[in-house]
Each structure stands twice: as structure tokens, then as C-alpha cells.
């Protein structure tokens, strides 16, 4: 019998931890949209595309730019947040493709984002500490 009763008490479901990952994902999304085109265009592809000269990308200039305290922003905006952005989508993608979901996938995805981010920060810190 299909009766639609509403008198089953509603239990409050568990609060999701997704807001953390989603916030990082969104912040990352903004960075990817705003910073990645510029960096990809001018730094990674700048020389082959003939947009910048090797002189413009010389060691001293880049060293000064990147390991400047403000360069931390670049590390965060172009590496750390995009990593969380990417791993968030990969995490959901695994679910979408019915490949994996649950704890393990989540740990692997966000874990690797944490790991790679730490690597980037560590690389930056050791040099800028040494030079600063």
C-alpha cells in the first residue's frame, strides 16, 4: 500500500565536510580562471609563442619576482588552490564515472592535494628564507 505519511520523525542528517573542500575548490576555480591563462600564456608558453623574450624570463627577474614575499600569493593562487580545485573535481569525477567513491577515494584525492601543496610551499619557503 502506497500511503504517503509524514509522521515518521525526521532525523537530522550529518553535516557534510564538503564546505571546506568546496570553498577551496571555488577559490581555486577563480584562480584557475584568472591567473592560469596569464601564466600559461606568458611564462610557460611565452617564449615558444614569441610573446616574451628569454631575457624577460631571465633568472634574476624571476627569482626576484617569485621569492618576493608577494610571490607566496603566486604559489597559493597558481599552485595550491588550483591543486585543490583539480583534486575536488577528480574526486567527484570518480564518483560520476562510478569508479570509486567513499573514504579511500576522498583521502587519496585531497591527500595528494595536501601533499603537493606542501611540496610547493616547502620549495618556496626554503629558498625565500635562505635568500631573505
Amino acid at each position: 500500500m502506497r500511503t504517503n505519511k509524514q509522521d515518521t520523525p525526521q532525523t537530522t542528517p550529518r553535516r557534510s565536510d564538503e564546505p571546506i573542500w568546496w570553498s577551496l575548490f571555488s577559490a581555486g576555480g577563480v584562480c584557475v580562471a584568472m591567473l592560469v591563462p596569464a601564466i600559461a600564456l606568458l611564462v610557460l608558453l611565452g617564449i615558444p609563442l614569441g610573446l616574451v623574450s628569454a631575457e624577460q624570463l631571465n633568472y634574476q627577474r624571476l627569482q626576484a619576482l617569485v621569492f618576493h614575499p608577494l610571490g607566496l600569493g603566486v604559489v597559493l593562487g597558481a599552485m595550491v588552490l588550483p591543486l585543490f580545485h583539480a583534486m575536488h573535481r577528480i574526486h567527484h569525477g570518480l564518483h560520476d564515472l562510478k569508479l570509486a567513491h567513499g573514504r579511500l577515494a576522498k583521502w587519496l584525492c585531497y591527500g595528494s592535494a595536501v601533499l603537493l601543496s606542501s611540496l610547493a610551499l616547502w620549495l618556496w619557503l626554503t629558498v625565500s628564507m635562505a635568500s631573505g
Partner: protein
Amino acid sequence: MPTLEMRLQRYRPEQDSAPHWQDFRVEYDDSTSVLDALEQIKAEQDSSLSYRWSCRMAICGSCGIMVNGVPKLGCKTFLRDYPKGLQLAPLGNFPVEKDLIVDMSRFLEHLTAIKPYLIAEAAPQGQPHRQTPAQLARYKQFSNCINCGLCYAACPQFGLKPDFLGPAAIALAHRYNLDSRDSGKAERMAQLNSDNGVWGCTFVGYCSTVCPKGVDPAAAVNQGKIASTLDGVIQWFKPAKEPRNKEQSK
């Protein structure tokens, strides 16, 4: 009158173990809707064909079906737009009961779960609340949902995980949360905050594309993500407080 080939998915629970296709040919003109065509088939060719309908003016939300794989209202889809013929199947992602009829009870359960009614502390005695057109405009669009379920048929996340509250239910929660007369947001957030609430959505966005009423449920769900995040932050800072506090209902 010109005729058109229609391929219908049939399923008779008492005889069949799985759906199968059946072809029909119908007459049509400029104003023949898919619903008219189904009526023609039921009247003249196969009276056992089952489908839902009532208003035939795109407001009751009964007649959702898949037309060439796209969720549509049968009464607002016209044969004139499908010169190459069409395939009709029951709404996707729902269990099929018979022919073009699906079981909507899960949808109704989700709708009920989010407390879709005004939760107000005190109403002015014998007089309406004041609500300016600007306050009305904040939620108006989300109150236009006809519960047709097209967005559920469109949403792969609902297909993958039927416990996901889904676009229309969340849009309705959002509608009440945005209503200047309501103070029940905290109660609704409990549902929205869960993995099956707003966080079940990955912003596929197709729900809004198929919505026949311009409700834009995707916007509601994703605005809900911001609300849920803020709710979490507030909760973080006030762990001792009762879940129902007034700041959140603003």
C-alpha cells in the same frame, strides 16, 4: 494531415520484465502537442497506453516525459518541432511503473523533508505581512516550480544517488529561506547541510536547462552551497548555541 512516426517505450508490470519499444504513427498539424498525440494513440490505436496528464497548459506538472532523451512536458512540446519523428520514454532516473508513468514518491519525500512551508515566529494579527516588491523578487522565481520532476530526470547526481534531495526540493527550501516573512532557515539548513543536501550537486546545471518554468534550480542549489558554508562557519564559532538562532534567518 501529415503523419509522424513515434516510438514509445512500453512497460506492463504484470507481463514484462523490462521495457520495450513500440512504434505508432500519428496525424499532426501545427498545434499538435506530444500529449495530443498520445491521446490520439490511446483513443484510436492502443487504449492500454498509460501516461499522466491533466491541465494540458503546462502548469499542473503531470506530464513530464523524455522526448528523444530530453525531459519535457508533453503538453508543451509540439510535433511540429520534430519532423524526423520522436521517441518517448518515461522520465529518467525514476522507477517506471507502467508505460510512461514513473513513481514520483521519492520526489515527494524529498520535497517534504525540507519543510516547504513558512515558519514564522509571529504574524501580524488579522493583517498581511508587509513585503515589498524587492523582497518578493528575491524568492519569486523559486516559487514558480510546478513539481514536474523534469530536473530530477536531468540531474545525473540524482540518478547516481537517489537520496540526493535534488534540484526542485532544494530550490523550494531556498525559496522559503529567502522569504522575508520566514524564520525557519535553521531548520531547513539541517537537511541542506548534509551530503544529500546541497552537497550532492556538482553543478551539472542541466536541471535549469530543462526546467519548463525558468525556476533555475541550479542557481538555488548553488546559492545554497554558500548559505551552507556560512552556516557551517557560524556554527563553528557558536558551537554552544541552539541550532535555531535568529542571525541565520536573515
